[in-house]
């Protein structure tokens, strides 16, 4: 227990001082936190509930656009604008999830995967045709008012805070009845229904929670990158949308820390590929994906758990 507290404390301290230790890496690290949020929120559905979504990036894009619209049309000062925009973005994302929930979450298995994929792509195409949000030309959120370098630090802490809130919230959710019902749906949804559980309510709620955090991160990322493109930033199904899945699987889906671990490993590996394998980075990424899913379908933590089950609190032998 002592060791664990120490490790957590060390992580917290490291995260807090990191922007001063490695000032050049602030944007990368901020994006890393966003990746962690991506993987965690995907795992809420894909890992815990067994609903493999390819379209979660939909909520990210909705949050990003709504935030930017509020900032642009609201005539607020920068910080109130960002705050209100992010809030509105999160609310909008939750609303979209709630409305779509009963229809889409009634799909099972790969139909759900493909339905959500269609949703994500359709949203990107719609935004790309709509002149109010700049159509294919994209949008530029307002410039950060602070001085040079302040922007990176600000968004570093914003993204850190986002990840730091998401993790314990999910942990708390998993520890109670909510998490158990999600697991039950994953293991055997028909049985859960036969036992009378209101599965649609739980599924929709889970989707809304996922959408909430994704909507918030959308607002932050839009401002962090300073440029919103409908297909390649906001509704980036073939990059962010798939990476979320990969990161969660890589770390071990259905675990709390797996997605975090997966996001870190994936993000760092990807950055290294992009730096050292110029021109071949996507070949390397493609290979990596194939290797991950073929050889580590249960992920790093899943593999560790199979190896040392007793360290993960699972008992194989009977009776204490």
């Amino acid at each position, binding site marked *: 227990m002592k060791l664990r507290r120490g490790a957590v404390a060390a992580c917290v301290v490291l995260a807090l001082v990191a922007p001063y230790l490695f000032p050049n890496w602030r944007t990368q690290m901020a994006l890393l936190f966003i990746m962690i949020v991506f993987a965690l929120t995907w795992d809420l559905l894909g890992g815990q509930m067994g609903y493999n979504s390819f379209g979660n990036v939909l909520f990210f894009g909705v949050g990003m656009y709504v935030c930017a619209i509020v900032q642009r049309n609201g005539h607020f000062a920068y910080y109130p604008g960002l705050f209100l925009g992010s809030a509105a973005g999160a609310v909008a994302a939750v609303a979209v999830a709630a409305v779509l929930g009963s229809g889409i979450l009634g799909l099972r298995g790969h139909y759900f995967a493909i339905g959500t994929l269609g949703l994500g792509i359709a949203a990107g195409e719609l935004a790309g045709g709509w002149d109010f949000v700049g159509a294919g030309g994209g949008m530029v959120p307002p410039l950060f008012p602070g001085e040079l370098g302040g922007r990176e630090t600000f968004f570093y802490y914003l993204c850190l805070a986002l990840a730091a809130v998401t993790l314990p919230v999910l942990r708390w959710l998993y520890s109670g009845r909510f998490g158990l019902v999600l697991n039950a749906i994953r*293991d055997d949804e028909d049985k859960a*229904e036969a036992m009378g*559980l*209101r599965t649609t309510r739980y599924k929709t709620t889970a989707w809304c929670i996922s959408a909430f955090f994704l909507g918030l991160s959308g607002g932050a990322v839009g401002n962090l990158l300073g440029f919103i493109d409908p297909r390649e930033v906001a509704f980036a199904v073939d990059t962010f949308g798939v990476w979320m899945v990969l990161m969660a699987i890589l770390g071990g889906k259905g675990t709390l820390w797996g997605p975090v671990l997966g996001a870190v490993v994936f993000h760092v590996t990807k950055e290294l590929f992009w730096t050292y394998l110029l021109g071949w980075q996507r070949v390397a990424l493609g290979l990596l994906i194939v290797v991950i899913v073929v050889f580590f379908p249960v992920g790093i933590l899943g593999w560790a758990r199979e190896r040392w089950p007793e360290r993960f609190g699972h008992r194989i032998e009977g009776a204490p």
Partner: protein
Amino acid sequence: MTAMLEVDRVRKSFGGLLANKDVTLRVPAGGIFGLIGPNGSGKTTLFNSIVGQHPIDAGSIRFEGREISRLRVPEIARLGLLRTFQQTRIYSGMTCVQNMVISVAVSGLDWSSMFQRVPTADLRKAEELLEFVGLFPKRHLRAGDLSFGQQKLLELAMALMSGPKMLLLDEPTAGINPTLINGLLERLRRINEQFGITLLVIEHNMRVIMNLARYVYCLAHGELLAEGKPAEIQQDPRVLDAYLGSR
């Protein structure tokens, strides 16, 4: 005695195959009832129709006087009519206790309880019921790691956890070690007497059903062939014919 479950001229076909042909039966509240019949006589189809697994083509099904033939599985389950499966269905990735605590009666759950931690009362009840079916020592094991017979017992315990009014059991003794069957029968009787749950049991083992049930319905070729006390059914030439003929 009021009828708890009334099945009235239920008809169900799959493609050209008529699986249930105008089946009518009335199950009164309070006892243990048997549903027998040779393989393919439409017993499981009837169970599926009752609990809302698939739509019926014609007829009506009433539970405590309420029409349920248009309701879907979870709605019927929340009324207190539950079934177990021939091939057991449990949440294999979770421990036995976890399996139990999410099987509490849903009617008592509202929005606010969604995010609650599991109340200790539920935990205690779960452990009691696991003790009752003899799985207490295994309570922290993954349900998927249990043997088939143990999974059946777990499924039964889960059904009890939600406090149903009536249970439809699909071959509870199949796959259970013969030496344990007597214990299981004893438990089923106690479920009926102590918990006051009406049981409707599909069973192949004639010895078991004659021993257990107070009243037996016999299906053959999708039709209700005979009904009556076990002793009467045992003597009924039509029933004997159906069984011998099916061999």
